[in-house]
């Protein structure tokens, strides 16, 4: 149970921090596609018999860099959609060929936080701290190039480099999150809390901190509920993100006094 709390907290902090940039850059679709790459990687690693983390990191990196590279040539959303389904299909094929089909698939897609072992904690914490340090060091240029890429370029920020670093950090954090909350719901954690935080505060620093805090609360409540009611954690993470977003919309609408219409925009 302690393992679940530790890895859950690391994962939530990472998702909240990177999700802030995902929402800011409108990169939701990429953030949705990369976990599916990680799913295929874990399934492949299972089949060959190597450490799943290795497969997760490799495939997530390949998916992130592939989406980044192809988006310059092809229309972005079509390329993302096709790489997404290709990865899912590969994962399904790998799992079919291995022996533990149904159980392996469910835990990879929908998460199994209570199954995190002590030996898995150490790499999760190390990679998590590495990711967070990168984001913290590059916070200002990353923010600048997300909001106004052209102006950032003029002011001497190397936007292409920052973009690659962002994609790599996103891939690493995804690889860590997938085994905990599952490939399909990694995305919910990366979009729900940051989107809610952004509605509540428009100031970057405050919104960033709030995003991490909301992600942490979502994960902690989900772990507790999952344990108490004996239901999959993905259910609580997914619906929790949506509830937060809805609450933030209501709060925002009341504060700006534009009434209910604002809810619908």
């Amino acid at each position, binding site marked *: 149970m302690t393992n679940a709390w530790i890895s859950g907290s690391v994962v939530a902090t990472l998702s909240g921090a990177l999700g802030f940039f995902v*929402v800011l850059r*409108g990169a*939701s*679709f990429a*953030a*949705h596609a990369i976990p599916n790459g990680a799913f295929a990687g874990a399934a492949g690693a299972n089949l060959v018999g190597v450490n799943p983390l290795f497969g997760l990191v490799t495939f997530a990196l390949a998916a992130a860099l592939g989406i980044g590279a192809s988006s310059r*040539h*092809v*229309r*972005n*959303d*079509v390329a*993302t*959609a*096709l790489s*997404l*389904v*290709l990865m*899912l*299909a*590969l994962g*399904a*094929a790998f799992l*079919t*060929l291995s022996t533990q*089909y*149904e159980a392996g*698939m*469910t835990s990879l*897609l*929908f*998460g199994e936080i209570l199954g995190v072992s002590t030996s898995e904690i150490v790499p999760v914490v190390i990679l998590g701290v590495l990711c967070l340090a990168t984001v913290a060091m590059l916070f200002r240029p990353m923010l600048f190039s997300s909001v106004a890429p052209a102006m950032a370029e003029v002011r001497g920020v190397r936007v292409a480099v920052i973009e690659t670093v962002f994609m790599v950090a996103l891939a690493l954090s995804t690889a860590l999150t997938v085994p905990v909350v*599952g490939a*399909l*719901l990694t*995305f*919910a*954690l990366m*979009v*729900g809390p940051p*989107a809610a935080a952004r509605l509540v505060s428009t100031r970057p620093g405050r919104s960033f901190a709030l995003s991490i805090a909301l992600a942490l609360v979502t994960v902690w409540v989900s772990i507790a509920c999952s344990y108490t009611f004996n*239901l*999959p954690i*993905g*259910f*609580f*993470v*997914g*619906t*929790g*993100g*949506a509830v937060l*977003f809805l609450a933030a919309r209501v709060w925002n609408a009341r504060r700006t006094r534009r009434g209910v219409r604002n809810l*619908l*925009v």
Partner: protein
Amino acid sequence: MHWIFEPGLWANSSVRTALAVGAIVALVSSVVGVFTVLRGQTFAGHALTDVATAGGAGAVLAGVAPLLGFLGGGVLGAGVMEGVGVERVRGRDVATGVVLGAAFGLSALFLYLSTSTSATTGTTQLILFGSIFTVSPSTLPVVAVLSGAVLLIVASIARPLLLSSLSAELAAARAIRVRAVGFAFVAVLAVSVGLSSIIIGSILSTALLIGPPASALKIVNRLGGAFVLAAAAGVAAALSGVVLAYDSFYWFASHRGLPVSFFVVVIVVLEFVAASVAQRLRQRPGEPGRVEPPRPTVS
């Protein structure tokens, strides 16, 4: 021929049903997909598949046919996204994402409950990755009627839909009710996503919806040509997917066949790569590339 068509392929009734259902559904998906790609609604189309997942999982839990759940979930999701304003550019990326995340949460719950309360295994696989070989012949008329309805609606709104996809302002000036047309299209999109979910599963139905149309639009400029080419590419992918999946049973010593959805997706992606290469080769150096439809920006 023996290499491609393993013995017993044509004698097997579930394979015949699979081929028929596959061809019909691929045709509908490709036609609807042409408009989805033109309108830049790839992410919305994909999100609908995820909402359909929750519907399908709920249907299995309630003990009704998955097709019913796929359709119900898709149509409900289309209504919610239209209501929340996913269609509108501002914040649509994020709103789509949140709807999608909530849908996955529900799927997780439903799948968990249905696998833990009944002894049937394979529910997760059935819903997410499809199993066309288990489609009963009695479903075929239902699929055919729904597909006919979708094609009829698309044909009757094709011109106003095309105009409002390319320029909403121009369409409004020509007295086209852009919103009504848009909603009719999302409803049609939901039904076609529900249909393709039974072949290649709900989370992979994006492949049939987006792949063949995107490939076709790379090669031809005219709408009619794009329809024909997309339909041909989609049907080819579905049919060869079914045949290859049947054959794959003999490929491994363990007699573990690969899923139909895997082959369909791989073929669709290969078609897209081939179309991209063909487009690149046709462009002579110095000649400006094809003008892509404007991509909606996310504010």
